[in-house]
């Protein structure tokens, strides 16, 4: 015992010595980046530091969500397949390299090159090539109309183009760039000790002015409880994805607070197949009955402790093309039973609901609640929970049948195009096929005219409603734990962007 006490005393002494220096802002993350090369990941833990290091041509206004100039001061459509961007002059990368038209061309074409193997390449694959007009003007030429191009040039977690320095990459190679990135964002890379810390410092020459915070440290802490403990002990300043049941503890601590962001969260839905597995779910009436059986409001109120809201159509309310007049199938178990009788399933049936394990907020519990509600109308639903990596593999192979939970959005795209990712039959995540819907979504993808495009998405939402290929979509709120010394509000896509952050 004496040894333990002795050791503890020594520890206290050492801990005391370590204090006294100004503390950087510390962000604890669930994991660590594998690469800091913006083009080479679709990973939240890598995107968060990269968002501070790199910058994009456009960005979104925080209040209106409208796209606005950033590295580019303006942009316009020259013809159906050519977008022109005018760059702000005088912007330099952290190493002094000029951020000019050549750098923009290099960045877009680097991500586009199949040999590069950028995981977000598909999102910009409609781009054919980029022409340098002069030092501060580029023309992005697409193989067919590509209305989403400006969105792909603004910050987003995957499939968006960050501008990278061509000379530096040539100098250090892809491998060097991955561990020691140079961008033009508000913070500069300082050092990266794998598994321990990634240190950034303020970029005094940032084109919007220097950030208020001098030093940022990202730390990988795999255990959620440990992340929250770090916040409570004053060791960390920012923790994302706090589960609702930890909020009270944080609020009561006196050293930290919570911030709930309802904007732009994941659009979560349970998809039901109509063609990959024979069964009652192939009948649209049955899928509507399933929707009628689910009281999503109650699930959100109880299981998510109110931190979310029902959407119905799997589209963010802020998304371009979202039809606010659209009402989804309500909660009505009587009509659910009637529809099941009508479809010839008066005695119900059995089905499996595949659930991820802690991919979304309280996901397993949400699906268990759904299963219980389905039970009340005679559908015996079994919830099958899969471990993360197995789940991803299985959904890729479309083996999670007849129904599984998935999500889309939350990546800053805010566009009806999200329906393609969730519901177009060719999408990697879709298990439903509706040819009329596929056609309309494809048409919208090739339509530059915003009004025509909006009308197409409205039409698409009507088809989705009638066909009911999902169980009531909902959006989860994002909960952040923030130390009291840090003044910061969540960014619209719920990725951390700390340019506006300051110490109180």
């Amino acid at each position, binding site marked *: *015992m004496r040894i333990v006490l002795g050791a503890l005393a020594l520890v206290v002494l050492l801990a005391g010595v370590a204090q006294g220096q100004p503390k950087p802002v510390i962000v604890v993350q669930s994991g660590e980046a594998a690469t800091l090369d913006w083009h080479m990941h679709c990973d939240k833990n890598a995107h968060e530091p990269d968002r501070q290091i790199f910058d994009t041509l456009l960005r979104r206004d925080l209040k209106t969500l409208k796209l606005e100039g950033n590295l580019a001061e303006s942009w316009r459509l020259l013809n159906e397949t050519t977008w022109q961007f005018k760059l702000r002059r005088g912007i330099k990368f952290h190493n002094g390299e000029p951020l000019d038209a050549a750098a923009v061309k290099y960045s877009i074409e680097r991500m586009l090159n199949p040999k590069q193997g950028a995981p977000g390449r598909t999102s910009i694959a409609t781009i054919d090539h980029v022409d340098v007009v002069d030092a501060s003007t580029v023309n992005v030429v697409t193989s067919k109309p590509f209305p989403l191009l400006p969105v792909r040039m603004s910050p987003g977690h995957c499939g968006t183009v960050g501008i990278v320095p061509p000379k530096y990459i040539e100098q250090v190679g892809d*491998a060097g760039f991955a561990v020691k990135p140079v961008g033009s964002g508000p913070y500069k890379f300082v050092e990266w000790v794998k598994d321990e810390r990634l240190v950034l410092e303020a970029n005094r020459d940032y084109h919007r002015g220097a950030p208020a915070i001098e030093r940022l440290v990202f730390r990988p802490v795999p255990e959620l*409880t440990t992340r929250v403990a770090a916040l409570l002990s004053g060791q960390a300043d920012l923790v994302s994805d706090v589960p609702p049941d930890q909020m009270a503890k944080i609020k009561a601590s006196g050293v930290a607070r919570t911030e709930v962001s309802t904007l732009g969260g994941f659009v979560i839905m349970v998809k039901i197949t109509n063609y990959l597995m024979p069964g009652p779910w192939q009948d649209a009436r049955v899928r509507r009955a399933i929707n009628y059986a689910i009281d999503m409001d109650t699930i959100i109120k109880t299981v998510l402790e109110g931190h979310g809201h029902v959407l119905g159509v799997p589209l963010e309310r802020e998304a371009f093309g979202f039809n606010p007049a659209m009402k989804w199938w309500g909660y009505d178990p009587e009509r659910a039973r009637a529809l099941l009788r009508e479809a010839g399933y008066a005695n119900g049936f059995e089905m499996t609901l595949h659930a991820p394990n802690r991919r979304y907020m309280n996901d397993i519990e949400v699906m268990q609640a759904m299963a219980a509600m389905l039970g009340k109308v005679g559908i015996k639903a079994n919830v099958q929970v899969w471990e993360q*990596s197995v789940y991803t593999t299985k959904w890729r192979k479309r083996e999670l049948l007849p129904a599984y939970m998935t999500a889309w959005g939350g990546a800053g795209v805010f566009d009806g195009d999200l329906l393609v990712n969730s519901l177009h039959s060719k999408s990697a995540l879709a298990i439903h096929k509706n040819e009329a819907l596929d056609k309309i979504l494809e048409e919208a993808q090739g339509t530059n005219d915003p009004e025509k495009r909006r009308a197409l998405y409205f039409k698409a939402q009507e088809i989705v409603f009638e066909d009911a290929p999902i169980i009531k979509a909902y959006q989860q709120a994002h909960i952040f734990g923030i130390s009291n010394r840090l003044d910061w509000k969540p960014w619209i896509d719920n990725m951390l962007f700390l340019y506006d952050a300051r110490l109180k």
Partner: protein
Amino acid sequence: MLYVPLVIAYLFRRLAWAVVLLFGITLAVFLVVHLSGDPTALYVGPEGTREDYEMVRAALGFDRPLPEQYGRFLLRAVQGDFGRSLRHQQPTLPLVLTRFPATLKLALVAMALAVALALPLGILSALRRNSVLDTFAMAFALSGQCMPTFWLGILLILVFAVQLRWVPVYGGEGLAALALPALTLGVWAMARTARITRSSMLEVLHQDFLRTARAKGISEWGVVLRHALRNGAIPIVTAIGLELGNLLGGAVITEAVFAYPGVGRLAVEAVVNKDVPLLQAVVFTVAASLILLNVAIDLLYMALDPRVRLA
């Protein structure tokens, strides 16, 4: 006492077995990982198409038959090349080896802490058998063995890092960095070693040679430490040796809880990301060090007890 050629022959035999064992272990890991689906899905962007998927699958070599994939792995492994980590895009063995010292340090400190507590606890319990001290010490040991690592780690964090703020939740320098993780990791080993020390001490305490020792006028502590402990040492050394192995392997949870940058965390990360080459390298390194450890224990037996023969 020790015959050098015999020892060398023995080492060669053990080494041959080690190779067979390592071969089996890598095969097992390979099969388990591949039976739960191929890792391609995790390395294609969410919007990736079927074609992207097939392209990545082919690039990673997961489209080939399993025996061929394993064969390729083995061929490279015997040359010391465990492939590149899918996630880190770096050779795996250096990734593991740079983290190994941290895990070893944690395991050794945990072991030192455990032994420093367990030996006195076990010896005193044996000497004062059935006393209040014995009951208390064994209850302490038992509860140490019952507490799940995860739970204990979080508890220690909440008390010492959040409430008292004596140590950081994670990170820190020197002892501050190691105190809580080593305590968490060492408790099980402490409990087990204390109980084994107690029972093996009890076994020798009443034997004739101790009476002889006492008759020679050696002090009671001299009797206990020099004669009893030495003779009761083999099970204790075995326990400690095996525990050290457990500590190396068991650091997985502790490292995750305390965000400690060691091999255990790398293993968890490799599993989550289905990083097969990295996982192979981790398992290989840990398995190899456990085998080495076992050989070392066997050699230690001979030093402790000349009757042990190199069979």
